[in-house]
């Protein structure tokens, strides 16, 4: 409970007394490149294979001849948009970017770089963390869109190569009875996950105490805490938004 309280105080400090717009804009652009662009390759690989595996496994489970084959594509689409793209990307993202944020801030803390900022009269939490949170907020939904697209494409590719579905059936399936709210839902999830991963990882890194060993611990803890928070938020959002809808 003490940690949760400290986390909210940290958020309060982060969003208060920011510096000039021009300074933050430059940092924001740097973070977009650092956080967003550098994650494209890993997110693409994971998403494409998850889509491919989902297609093959769904086809394997659809044994009844009464169920049309285009349902495979429909299942891939809904699983991808509703769950796999935002959540699996979140886990990959927490592992890559979350640990990176925590170790970067942790190293800055133990080498007194954060103290140096504070002595200069700069709000170090705001200066270091706010651009990361905003950049993640912008870049993560884009990564989720990319992940969804590549996952569906991966499913298409695997279905065609393995012969479990024809291109026409797949294209028909991914368009069949599409509920547009699922896309909105995925975007809402991606904004929430982006905030959770970036803020929790920053929090863990910012308050690192000790040396190199503790930086490693902070990095691990950032990933595990972010993933747990994402899964809890995933459940709550599903309960809240899908039931309401």
């Amino acid at each position, binding site marked *: 409970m003490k940690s949760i309280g400290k986390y909210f105080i940290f958020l309060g400090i982060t969003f208060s007394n920011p510096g000039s717009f021009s*300074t933050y804009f430059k940092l924001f652009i740097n973070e977009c490149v650092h956080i967003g662009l550098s994650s494209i390759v890993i997110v693409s690989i994971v998403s494409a294979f998850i889509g491919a595996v989902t297609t093959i496994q769904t086809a394997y489970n659809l044994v009844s001849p009464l169920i049309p084959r285009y349902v495979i594509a429909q299942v891939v689409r809904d699983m991808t948009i509703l769950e796999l793209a935002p959540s699996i990307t979140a886990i990959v993202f927490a592992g890559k970017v979350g640990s990176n944020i925590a170790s970067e801030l942790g*190293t800055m803390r133990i080498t*007194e*770089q954060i*103290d*140096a900022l504070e*002595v*200069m009269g700069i709000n170090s939490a705001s200066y270091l963390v706010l651009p990361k949170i905003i950049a993640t907020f912008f870049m993560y939904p884009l990564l989720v869109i990319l992940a969804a697209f590549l996952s569906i494409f991966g499913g298409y590719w695997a279905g065609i190569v393995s012969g479990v579905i024809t291109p026409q059936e797949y294209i028909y399936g991914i368009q069949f009875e599409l509920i547009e709210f699922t896309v909105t839902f995925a975007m809402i999830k991606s904004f929430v996950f982006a905030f959770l991963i970036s803020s929790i990882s920053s929090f863990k890194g910012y308050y690192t105490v000790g040396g190199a060993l503790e930086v490693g611990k902070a990095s691990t803890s950032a990933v595990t805490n972010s993933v747990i928070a994402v899964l809890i938020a995933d459940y709550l959002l599903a309960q809240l938004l899908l039931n309401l809808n």
Partner: protein
Amino acid sequence: MIRIENISKSFGDKVILSNISGEFKRGMTNMIIGASGTGKSVLLKCMVGLFEPDEGYVYYNDRDFTHADRSKRIVIRREIGMLFQGGALFDSINVEENVKFPLDQLSDMPEDEKLDRINIVLERVDLAGVNKKMPSELSGGMKKRVGIARAIVNNSKYLFCDEPNSGLDPITSIRIDNLIQEITEEYNITTIVVSHDMNSVMEIGEYVMFMYEGRKIWEGSKNNIMEAVEEELNDFIFANKMMQIVKEKSSL
């Protein structure tokens, strides 16, 4: 001038600083000395606001820093330069950007003036021409000198140095000590150096405060430290073999 009054600080049950007062004069190299773990760095961090003292006051030219609100603190903090133990240079930017950082954040100087100022301070610390080097390419002594350049680039009125000699060879240590003293006199600033190095004390200690287990035991200068009668201080001064030899020779 910086004045501290009755500073106390504890972490949990452990008392780190107990009722410490003192005055650090402008244009002088003031030193806080003592063995490791006596609370020197904690006192320094209380003075610059990185730690909040449990009790007591810190005054910068009679301006109460301890109980000032955030905006008043920022005004004072912008007059402070600090050299950290490891230099605390920002890893991701080069020397020039490191030194320029306070100017970017705290002044509205035009770009060309900033560059002139950077070159002046880098030259002052004998590091002309290293502008584009990354901190990882610098030696320990060079990092400290860049740290000093960054601390004074904004025409700071107060310079704090936390263990400026740690990890340096004796010659580089003396070079850093002399640089700190020269800058203090040249810019007429109030400098406070935290150290446990007796060589530094004898080199630059114009005002010396000795701390032992969180308490101030003695104050004076390098000129009268050898005559001090306090046991804790004598144990500290003469812990070093060389100082013991000096003492034996001088008593002959």
